């Protein structure tokens, strides 16, 4: 029988996230971020967090909420250009920041979940990212050694999930969620729709439940759009 990973609500899901812990959060920009859990972290006031997330949200949404309240001690990300408060805290030295190439960030999370402690990648060779890292040539091309990333908690957001923790993401809201789901000591999944086991096609699961320790159905998703770009009306007739 499939194991049951359901917890009652976001409070139960986030239990055990303590000051000083490392937390991975899925999402790209504001797309596919675990909105409910971020809200809960803001509510509990847990602090000195190291957050691993591709972006840092915007000033009043996503991880920006936890930056505003100074709950984040260190941020590990690839791009943080949308957040003025982030830039201020970083330049003033209040916030410790580790910027990582996006592909290396994704692969390091996957490696963390897959028991691969380190791997070679060409990304970042010859840049300040490579400082202090081992360099080795393969096929005449220099590569740097990158290490796996794991976290005390990984928090992901999916579209649908079942009680066994199997997850399906929607469109590009998938992004970092699957890799991070594998790399948490405890992985929390918030889903828009929680269904009984047997309802999801076993061939179409993006994150197998084995990676998920807690799952709950979130409420009131804002799903904010960062750059609303639309085709001009004249284009619509082109189909």
């Amino acid at each position, binding site marked *: 029988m499939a194991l049951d990973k359901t917890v009652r609500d976001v409070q139960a899901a986030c239990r055990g996230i303590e000051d000083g812990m490392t937390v991975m959060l899925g999402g790209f920009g504001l797309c596919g971020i675990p909105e409910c859990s971020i809200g809960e972290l803001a509510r509990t006031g847990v602090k000195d967090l190291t957050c691993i997330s591709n972006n840092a949200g915007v000033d009043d949404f996503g991880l920006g909420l936890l930056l505003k309240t100074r709950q984040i001690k260190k941020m590990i990300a690839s791009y943080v250009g949308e957040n003025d408060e982030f830039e201020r805290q970083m330049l003033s030295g209040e916030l410790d920041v580790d910027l990582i190439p996006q*592909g290396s960030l994704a692969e390091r999370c996957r490696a963390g979940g897959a028991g691969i402690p380190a791997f070679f990648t060409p990304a970042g060779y010859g840049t300040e990212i490579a400082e202090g890292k081992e360099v080795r040539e393969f096929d005449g091309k220099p590569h740097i050694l990158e290490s796996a990333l794991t976290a005390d908690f990984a928090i992901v957001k999916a579209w649908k999930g079942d009680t066994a923790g199997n997850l399906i993401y929607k469109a*590009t809201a998938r992004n970092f969620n699957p890799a991070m789901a594998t790399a948490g000591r405890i992985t929390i999944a918030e889903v828009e729709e929680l269904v009984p086991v047997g309802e999801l096609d076993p061939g179409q699961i993006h994150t197998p439940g084995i990676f998920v320790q807690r799952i709950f159905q979130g409420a009131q998703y804002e799903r904010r759009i960062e750059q609303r770009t639309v*085709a001009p009306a004249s284009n619509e007739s082109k189909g």
Partner: protein
Amino acid sequence: MLDKIGIAKRIAQELENGTYVNLGIGIPTLVANLVPEGMNVEFQSENGILGMGPFPTDADVDADLINAGKQTITALPGAVYFDSAASFAMIRGRHVQLTVLGAMEVSQQGDIANWKIPGRLVKGMGGAMDLVASAENIVVAMMHTNKHGESKLLSSCSLPLTGVACVKRIVTNLAVLDVKDGVFHLVERAPGVSVQDIQAATAGDLVVPAEVPEMQI
């Protein structure tokens, strides 16, 4: 002299039929709408889509469907969604044949700097370091000079690097230039731009052939 659309139009001529292409934020994004007639390419966006289509109509906007610039987009028939690790597996594994991206500086060795101004601008490299370290073909789309009028084509970059010895071709508002054997090679002039204009705006070593054709756009 070209405007940004002009640069994008010239970049569009670099597309090869039947290839996968990644377009960076800014000028490169414009290329998607300028694909020549009869040319078939597929656009990859590193946040997790192959087969990216144009912006949606107002009714079709979906917060869960964006490109790497965080803009709302559509998906064409045959599109695929995938996760970030898979996306960069495609990029790092050289399955994306062409990357077009902007730059703050390019050196005559093909180094590129586009992610950081120490002590001032801190945005992060996003996927740029993976892209420039990986794609077979890297084309830079940028203005020839910065807003202070200083050349962005240098003998060596002054800003922190994004990648080394990776840029193959540069398309600016003034010219098309190739990077080869440690120097810039002038390939084409923008309409109405003289070789002297280009030489004056290029700080790095520039090889100028006897004949420099004007771009055909």
